[in-house]
């Protein structure tokens, strides 16, 4: 938003005022009371100073609100809240259970949506993976070739660019020690840990079983034991690599009970849950499964359980209450859910609909009904 203070004082007096108060907004001078009359801010009897009143104008130039009782001390915050409330909501959250989330979405847009469905932060461009960090900054893999950490003021404070050998960046995760986990796809598929200064601290070659760069990997994650868990779409497998690059475990997604290869159960997520199961969203297979440490299906949800809401299952997040939020990346129908949440017993308890948006690639749920999601996100 652009803020202007305005009074009937001269330019010179406004300049003095702005300097003395170190104001971060501009002061307009209206000695002829032209604006004052147009806005009804003059006082009767030709008084030398206007009423204390604030006007809020939307980007189309429409006057949307008048604040007649200005509380000087909290005015900035009050006005910001009024503008948020006036804005067109960005989609709707549907939940009979009364669930409201705020969340980061990556994909065709890169934005944080609050519980009232207002975009509260957004940067231009498409993105793939993304997290809101504990300090509030946003780490995202933007486009195909860069990982960026943005402050809420959209300043880039960390950046990693794709190496020339490769074609795409997918994963972007800030690790506990401060490194950033990045996965590059292309001729030299590899997993990297990048130091805060941008140097390659760890490099692990990956075995995606395909030269199709785009289909080599999706959302890799680092485990508490120091290993890396990597979903390889066309390998129909989530592989666990030790830091030396040795595959120590393979969880298959072309199991007969999941419909075999023809079901196109390409793994997108590989989320290690407390207890040892791995939560895997299966893109074209339109299902989500928990695989136990031996690779057996311990839990599954598919379109027979959720009324056809799966439509290219990309990102997912397991919430502390055991519910799972799932992205329907390919869903283009205006009235259908772009995100939905299922309980352990496969009931849909929350949906996010937005006719103006398709292509949510990943999700980071931040709050539920005003409370932050506890602990590191399982996504």
């Amino acid at each position, binding site marked *: 938003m652009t803020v202007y203070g305005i009074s009937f004082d001269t330019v010179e007096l406004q300049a003095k*005022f702005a300097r003395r108060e170190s104001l971060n907004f501009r002061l307009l001078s209206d000695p002829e009371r032209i604006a004052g009359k147009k806005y009804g801010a003059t006082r009767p009897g030709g008084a030398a100073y206007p009423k204390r009143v604030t*006007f809020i104008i939307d*980007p189309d130039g429409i006057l949307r609100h008048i604040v007649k009782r200005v509380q000087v001390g909290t005015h900035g915050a009050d006005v910001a809240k009024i503008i948020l409330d006036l804005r067109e909501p960005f989609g709707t959250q549907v939940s009979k259970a009364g669930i409201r989330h705020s969340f980061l979405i990556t994909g065709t847009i890169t934005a944080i949506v609050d519980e009232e469905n207002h975009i509260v932060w957004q940067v231009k461009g498409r993105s793939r993976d993304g997290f809101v960090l504990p300090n509030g900054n946003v780490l995202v893999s933007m486009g195909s070739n860069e990982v960026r950490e943005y402050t809420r003021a959209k300043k880039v404070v960390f950046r990693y660019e794709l190496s020339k050998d490769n074609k795409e960046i997918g994963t972007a995760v800030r690790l506990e020690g401060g490194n950033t986990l990045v996965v590059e796809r292309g001729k030299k598929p590899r997993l990297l840990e990048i130091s805060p200064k941008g140097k390659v601290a760890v490099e692990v070659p990956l075995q995606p079983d395909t030269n199709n760069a785009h289909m080599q990997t999706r959302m890799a994650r680092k485990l508490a034991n120091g290993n890396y868990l990597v979903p390889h779409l066309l390998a129909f497998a989530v592989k666990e690599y030790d830091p030396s690059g040795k595959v120590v475990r393979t969880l298959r997604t072309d199991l007969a009970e999941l419909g075999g290869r023809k079901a196109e159960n390409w793994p997108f997520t590989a989320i290690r849950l407390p207890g040892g199961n791995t939560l895997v969203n299966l893109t074209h297979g339109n299902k989500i499964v928990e695989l136990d440490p031996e690779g057996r299906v311990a839990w599954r949800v598919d379109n027979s359980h959720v009324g056809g809401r799966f439509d290219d299952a990309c990102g997912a997040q397991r919430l502390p209450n055991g519910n799972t939020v799932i992205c329907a990346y390919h869903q283009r129908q205006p009235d259908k859910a772009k995100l939905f949440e299922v309980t352990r017993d496969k009931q849909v308890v929350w949906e996010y609909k937005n006719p103006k948006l398709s292509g949510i690639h990943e999700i980071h749920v931040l709050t539920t009904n005003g409370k932050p999601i506890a602990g590191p996100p399982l996504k």
Partner: protein
Amino acid sequence: MHIATATTLLLVSSVLSAQSVPFPEVGKPAPVFTAKDQNGKPVTVGGKSKTWTVLAFYPKALTGG
């Protein structure tokens, strides 16, 4: 007499107050004007803009708010 004058003055002032210029209507295009900022640079308020605009009238410079 004095009381009558005072009453008249009060009446006149309340009439004047009621007749002061009304605020523009919410939901309609905001009035457009151009004024100089503290650096003498002209600024146009109203009409299409990239962002929301907040126009805060305040009584007098160096009085806060």
